């Protein structure tokens, strides 16, 4: 991350209870990181921390907050700049910390001064007195931590949203201290690890950039072959478009389901159909696998050894407890066999521990890790050598990049806003009982019993205007498609906003979502698009 020099939770789950104030923005923690939310609740109930929740929906965590800022979806930047304005005006900032540890403060301040409370209130829909109270709570209690998730990043301005959070934390001297920090909650079990070990188009393992000459030389020597050109490869969204245009002819997918998970899913299917050769390696024949030329059966988490890295950068062991079904094999064995068949040498790994030894060799942040050392409570990166105990808090005394950098960022509206034709705003997310595209959880009887169908959250005022009662069937349309599901009439959502998931193939929110992306982070804007809602007949297959 450009503000501090690395992108991960700066602090640890264990020190949440040290916080005196907590700002949770764009994270439905109770449903998406349930056990971590218990630590936040413990901080509030047992340790007296003051919690502010900023979310367009009245999520469960709001019940534990002293203040819920229910701002309009897509106005986070204005909100965050507005809080900084009040903190500066009330002299709650940490001038010594700013002088010693940061740079570019004055340039940033000049931008923030354009966000007075009355203007921010107009953009966000949050009353001025709530903005002032929130700024006093976050700015007036140390240490204070910020938690955020996809509610911040899944916008065309997601990258600027993250910078605005970093600005706020530096302004109040909250980075590099126990109980403080900037804490992105990573969604998937091993999204942190997949990034750490180089599963990204712009970095080698350990975030060594592909355009860095020293990194290229190091990997050329290690791989024993010349490296690809020093420019980033394609991101998921770009790969799909390239398949559509014929620039990418073959796609090999391990454990992902883009036909359901990616925005504008009708277009995604066209892209996948355009491929000449599609390989899908998974535990089930998911929606993407049904389009494949070759499907390879993989072992699930409980059927293999390995490691996952959690949201606090802690690497933990995954252990084989069951035999895989039929002829299914662990993914690592399948990949190594394909490499050998393509003529590669040095791919005779005895077991995952040997692969971790190689990761430790090439990725300095994992340099001191081995399966032996990961027994017990694991290790938090950076862990550069075999004697290093791991790093619970990043940026203590000094930022990874040297000085923390204030980044001026301006509010911009979402790419697609409601209009006469599509008058409501759709935001998407997940619920407690299901996971992502439902490949796993929709095959668990108990979870299906608890949450068998999509329920579209709609505010009572909007429902009344459209003649919709609770649990009525409704049709939701956007410029990209339409789906039919039942309505949940609830004030969990603001007037003008509806909420859907992407768990249910038969009523898929991603048919509606907009595939416009943040030009820097390349993250699609799942959190805001314009839709129309009307009452509908029950679909024939509904079985009511």
């Amino acid at each position, binding site marked *: 991350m450009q503000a501090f020099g690395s992108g991960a939770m700066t602090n640890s789950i264990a020190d949440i209870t040290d916080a005196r104030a907590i700002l949770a923005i764009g994270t439905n923690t109770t449903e998406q990181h349930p056990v971590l939310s218990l630590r936040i609740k413990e901080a509030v109930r047992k340790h007296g921390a003051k919690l502010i929740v900023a979310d367009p929906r009245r999520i469960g965590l709001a019940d534990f907050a002293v203040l819920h800022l229910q701002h309009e979806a897509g106005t986070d930047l204005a909100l965050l700049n507005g809080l900084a304005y009040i903190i500066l005006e009330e002299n709650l900032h940490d001038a010594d910390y700013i002088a010693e540890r940061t740079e570019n403060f004055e340039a940033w301040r000049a931008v923030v001064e354009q966000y007075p409370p009355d203007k921010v209130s107009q953009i966000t829909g949050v009353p001025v007195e709530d903005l002032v109270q929130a700024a006093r709570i976050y700015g007036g209690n140390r240490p204070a931590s910020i938690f955020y998730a996809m509610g911040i990043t899944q916008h065309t301005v997601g990258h600027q949203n993250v910078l605005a959070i970093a600005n706020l934390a530096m302004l109040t001297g909250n980075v590099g201290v126990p109980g403080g920090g900037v804490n992105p909650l990573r*969604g*998937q079990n091993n999204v942190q690890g997949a990034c750490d070990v180089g599963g990204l*188009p712009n970095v080698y393992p350990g975030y060594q950039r592909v355009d860095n000459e020293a990194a290229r030389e190091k990997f050329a020597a290690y791989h024993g072959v010349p490296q690809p050109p020093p420019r980033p490869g394609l991101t998921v969204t770009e790969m799909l478009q390239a398949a559509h245009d014929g620039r990418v002819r073959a796609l090999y997918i391990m454990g992902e389901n883009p036909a359901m998970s990616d925005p504008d899913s009708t277009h995604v299917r066209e892209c996948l159909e355009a491929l000449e050769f599609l390989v899908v390696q998974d535990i089930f024949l998911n929606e993407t696998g049904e389009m494949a030329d070759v499907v390879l059966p993989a072992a*699930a988490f409980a059927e293999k050894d390995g490691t996952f890295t959690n949201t606090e950068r802690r690497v933990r062991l995954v252990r084989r407890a069951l035999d895989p079904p039929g002829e299914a094999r662990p993914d690592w064995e399948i990949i190594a066999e394909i490499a050998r068949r393509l003529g590669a040498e040095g791919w005779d790994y005895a077991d995952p521990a040997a692969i971790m030894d190689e990761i430790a060799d090439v990725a300095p942040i994992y340099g001191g890790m081995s399966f032996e050392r990961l027994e017990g409570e694991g290790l938090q990166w950076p862990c550069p050598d075999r004697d290093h105990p791991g790093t619970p808090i990043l940026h203590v005394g000094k930022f990874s990049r040297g000085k923390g950098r204030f980044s001026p960022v301006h509010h911009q509206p979402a790419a697609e806003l409601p209009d006469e034709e599509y008058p409501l705003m759709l935001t998407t997310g997940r619920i407690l009982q299901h996971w992502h595209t439902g490949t796993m959880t929709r095959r668990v009887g108990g979870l299906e019993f608890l949450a068998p169908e999509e329920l579209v959250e709609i505010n009572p005022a909007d429902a009344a205007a459209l003649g919709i009662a609770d649990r009525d069937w409704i049709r939701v349309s956007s410029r990209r498609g339409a789906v039919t599901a039942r309505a949940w009439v609830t004030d969990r959502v603001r007037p003008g906003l509806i909420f859907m998931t992407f768990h249910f193939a038969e009523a898929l929110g991603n048919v509606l979502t907009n595939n416009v992306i943040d030009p820097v982070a390349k993250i699609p804007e799942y959190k805001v698009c314009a839709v129309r809602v009307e009452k509908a007949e029950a679909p024939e297959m509904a079985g009511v």
Partner: protein
Amino acid sequence: MIQADTIVRSTCPYCGVGCQLDLHIRDNLIYRVGASFDSGPNYGLLCVKGRFGHDFLWHPDRLTTPLIRRNGHLEPASWDEALGLVADRLASIRAESGPDAIALLCSAKCTNEENYLMQKLARQVIGTHNIDHCARL
């Protein structure tokens, strides 16, 4: 009371918190999931998915054999045939159109070791930086 043959400590496959699970195993099934009070970050706590969300492992829909599309339909095939086809097609597309005509997706649900190998396959063996996963989704 039925006792487990073994109890295996592992890491939850759902969200990014990384709760530690105690998998109680008997007859190649998980029949109970517990959590140790002595191990973080969850210290005995689990959510509904971590404690009860594992029946998918032995669901009849699990893939048990490689499949190859023949005449428009996916049909069972041997590992040798499936892997041979993958290697042949990737090699011929690379030879005709260059390494950047191939793209790979690794997975936020797979292990570090598997993701590491997938990016190494892309960069070392195929010769492309076209490697990504659903971090943004």
